[in-house]
Structures are given as C-alpha cells and as structure tokens.
C-alpha cells in the first residue's frame, strides 16, 4: 500500500502573529516553523499503517526551500521519502492542484492530510485534492482502519460521530483523535540521522494559477482591561453579565 501524506509548514503554535507594517503579509521574522499539528496526526497514522501493514509513506509539501527542515522532520518521524513542489503557496487551490498533479502519477492508495492548516485555516486543500483526483473524501476523521481496497473511517460530526466505509483510493483529512496525542512520534537520533539520506525530490510547479489572494491582514484588537469582581460579590458578576454584557 502506498500512502501520500500532505504536510504544511506552519508557525509554531506558541507564535505571536504579526503582520508587516503595510499589513500586506504575515511577518515571518523570528518564526519557528513546525509541521502543521493536524498534519502530524495524519503522518503518525500513516507511520502506524507502515508498521502494521508494510505501507510506504511519502510526504508531500508545497513550499519553497525554507520548508525543507520541516520535511526532514517528517522523514525523521518515519516517512520513507518526500516530494517538495517548489512553489511558495498562495492559496488552497494552487496548493491542491500541485498535490493532485504529483498524486496523479504516483498510484497512491490513500492520501492523508490534516483537515486544515493552523495558519490560513482554509480547510480546503483535502477536499479539492479529492475532487481533482475524482476520489472519495472523508473530512474531520478521528479514526481510520485499512483493509485491502477499503478503509473504514470515523468522522466527527456536530454532536456525534459517523463510521464510514470508503473505497480506496481516497482522501482522508484527519484531526485530533485520529491518533492519540501521546502516540505522536518524537524523532530519535537514529531517525534524524537516517532522514538526512532519505530521498527528497524537488519538482517544479505545473502552473501559477491562483483563485484567492490575501490583500491585507489585521491583528485581533485588544480587549478593554478586565473588570475584576470579588469572589464574595458574585451578585455583581451576575449583574454585569445580565445588564452590561447582556449575555445571560
């Protein structure tokens, strides 16, 4: 079985988000880059399938050379090889198109992704890849088993969950729960050393089509100073919520 895992390189979750002075772009100064945490759930799931079913795991990233340390980390976690499409991604559509172009000829049985990236939060790439490849798509997966040419995925729905059987090849987008947090793999020295020699193929993009542009960015405005209420005067808190904030 061949698995393709899509990973995005995103600012570390502790990053303060700043924009350039003219607000036209995200300010990358001083940012540490990590594998998108939701993609990490997908990658770990793929490595588990590699261990249990002998699958081969290829990671793909659409990004410029700056993303290579993040790709190497995915290789250190256990992916067999990697592809980087040499394009600084501008929107979900262009990213999805490049992934689909690579996947088209790869004969992958399963494409795994995180359901969204924690930077631009488009949540659009997995579904677009599925449609571009004309494959079924299961979003927000919190469980996955593979049995021959079929997978069983559990997806989270509002107020519940649904178990679905899916014919492979398919695209599955995962989230927290696809694997347990404690099962996420921290690369060991052996993994880090072997990652250096694993194949990382760089391919050029097929086009530069973009459908959505980020024209400007704003930070979240700060809240007014907190109003502290004494624990002995909860009537005041109830009054504030009722009369001032009008939320109860």
């Amino acid at each position, binding site marked *: 079985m061949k698995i393709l895992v899509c990973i995005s390189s995103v600012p570390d*979750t*502790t990053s*303060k*988000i700043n924009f350039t002075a003219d607000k036209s772009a*995200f300010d990358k100064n001083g940012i540490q880059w990590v594998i998108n*945490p939701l993609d990490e759930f997908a990658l770990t799931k793929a490595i588990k399938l590699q261990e249990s079913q002998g699958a081969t795991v290829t990671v793909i990233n659409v990004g410029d050379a700056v993303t290579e340390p993040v790709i190497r980390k995915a290789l250190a976690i256990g992916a067999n090889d990697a592809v980087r499409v040499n394009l600084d991604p501008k929107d*979900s*559509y262009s990213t*999805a198109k490049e992934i689909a172009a690579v996947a088209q000829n790869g004969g992958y049985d399963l494409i795994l992704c995180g359901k969204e990236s*924690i*930077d*631009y*939060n*488009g*949540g*659009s790439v*997995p*579904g*677009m890849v599925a*449609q*571009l490849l004309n*494959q*079924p798509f299961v*979003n*927000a997966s*919190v469980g996955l088993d593979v049995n021959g040419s079929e997978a069983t995925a559990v997806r*989270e*729905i*509002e*107020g*519940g969950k*649904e*178990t*679905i*059987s*899916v014919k492979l090849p*398919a695209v599955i987008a995962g989230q*927290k729960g696809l694997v347990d947090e404690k099962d996420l793999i921290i690369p060991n020295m052996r993994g880090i050393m072997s990652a250096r020699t694993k194949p990382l193929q760089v391919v050029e993009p097929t086009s530069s089509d973009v*459908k*959505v*542009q980020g*024209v400007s*960015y*704003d*930070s979240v405005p700060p*809240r007014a100073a*907190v*109003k*502290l*209420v*004494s*624990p002995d005067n*909860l*009537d005041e808190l*109830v009054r*504030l*919520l009722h009369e001032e*904030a009008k*939320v*109860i």
Partner: protein
Amino acid sequence: MAVFVYAENINGVYKKAAFEAVSYAKAVADQAGETVTAISVNPTDSSDLLYKYGASNVINIKDEGLKSFSAKAYAQAVSEVANGNIIVFPHTTDASSIAPMLAIMNGHSLITNTLAAPESLSPFQVKRKAFSGKGFMHAKSEAPGVILTVSQNAFGVKENVVSGSEEVKNLSVANEDTKVISHEQSSGKLDLKEAEIVVSAGRGLKGPENWGMVEELANVLGAATACSKPVSDIGWRPHTEHVGQTGKAISPNLYIAIGISGAIQHLAGVNSSKTIVVINSDAEAPFFKSADYGVVGDAFQIIPALTEKIKAIRG
C-alpha cells in the same frame, strides 16, 4: 440571478448554522440586488423557517441515495441545482467538506471562515478568520463565481421575513464510493460550535470527578461544556470538547473559563468569543489580560455559588 445558500439539516431538521448562513446570504443578495435561493437535501422541516431569514426560494432535493452523507455526492447534488455565481455555506463539518469539492466542480473560488458581509462584490472581497483566530485576512477573488463558508456565530441569525416559494427536485446522484455504517448522535447534548454560551474548565479543576459542578453551571445557563488541551490529553474529558488552536475554534456570546491559565494556543481558539469571563485562583494567569470579567479565587467555592445565583435570576 440568485445568491444560493446551502441550508444544512440534521435528520431533516434545520440547524442554527443554516439560519445564520441564510441570514448571511440575504445580506449578500441585498448588496447585489438579487434574491436568495436556499438548497436543502431531504429536509423534513418547513421551508417557512428559511423564508423567515430571507430565502425567497427553497429547493428541496429529494434523493434516497443522499440519506447518508457523502461529501462528493452532496457536492454533485448541490452543483446540479446551484447555478449562481455566489454560493454560501455554513462552516460546519459537513458543509466544509462539500464546499471544496463543489469549488473544483464549478471552477469557483472558495473563501472559508468568513466573518462579515462582503466588503466589495466586484472584485469580491471579504474578511475572514485566519491564524486560528490570532488574525484576520481580507481575501479577494476575481473568479467569476465564489463559494463562501460562514464562520459559525460570527454573522448571527437575523430575521428578515420574505414571502417564499418551494420547489422539489428529485435527483438520484451516484453515491457508490462511501457508505455510512453507523451514525451516533449524542442526544440532548448541545453542540459546542453552535452554543451561545460555553463553560470550559482546565487543569485547575484537579480531576475529572470535579466536572459535575462545571456541568451544573452549564445546565443552568443552557451552555455547552468544553475543556483545555491538557485536560483532553490526560483523558479527563473527550477530545471533542477541546477548544483551542488544535481543537475546536468557537465564538459564543459568553465563554466562561474556569481554572484555565490562558496559553496562547487556548486563546487562539476562543478569543473571538464576544464576552469572556475568567475564574482562576492565580491572579497572574495570563488569561485575565484577554478577559472582560475576572474573578480571582477558588473555583470550588465560586462555581457552586455562581450556579445558585444564576439559578435564582433565571428561576
């Protein structure tokens, strides 16, 4: 031309997110001088509920094959009836699974997590959530058609009664690649993303056995319950309740955080809440900087007392 909107139902019953999406679509349609056509798959609820928020036409897709959900088959069905250049979806799990597939089918652009009515229609420009709630992006599209997903609780549900008409479309879309084996809906539990009030707790609660008081407060307020990441990681609460950057992003009217220090990753998921109350014994907890109201003190005394006081005024 019409502005289309996907009115999501669950077991035939319209969701609050559907009413919000229709309200949003009505604002877009008013801007464009057009009308709203709502699309729903196998609803049992009355279309009157959609006229109330501004849908002049309702297309009810009847299709036995769509009794169970498949992103691809639903996208195909919507694509067969929505021939406008603006299609609005709520940003729910189902809708945000359908929208990207539909965007590719129709050659439309897709802008997700929108927060307000468009800033401009030509070129299309709208404000959306980005960086997990740590920032906003003004997104522009010059494509002839655009699909939007509206961030839940951002625009709000707005009554705007119109007289409407209903049309039934019988389809039979192929739905062969996926099959729903089982469907579990926890009954009576308020959906976290739709909830207007959320009561959330963190490690300050010391153990899962203490969640009873959180649930009781939530009950009295008609709120959903949530938790911080460490709490779901230790297994005190299910991961479905984790709110934050890698969990769920929520924007209720009132968010009450109990015993949560307010790490940047937690704030990312909740700081679009309209009002934030923080209850923590540590006066230095960073969360107080992002709160509207705060109480420094022992949650084990404050929560039961607060619950009684709210019960009294709601009495």
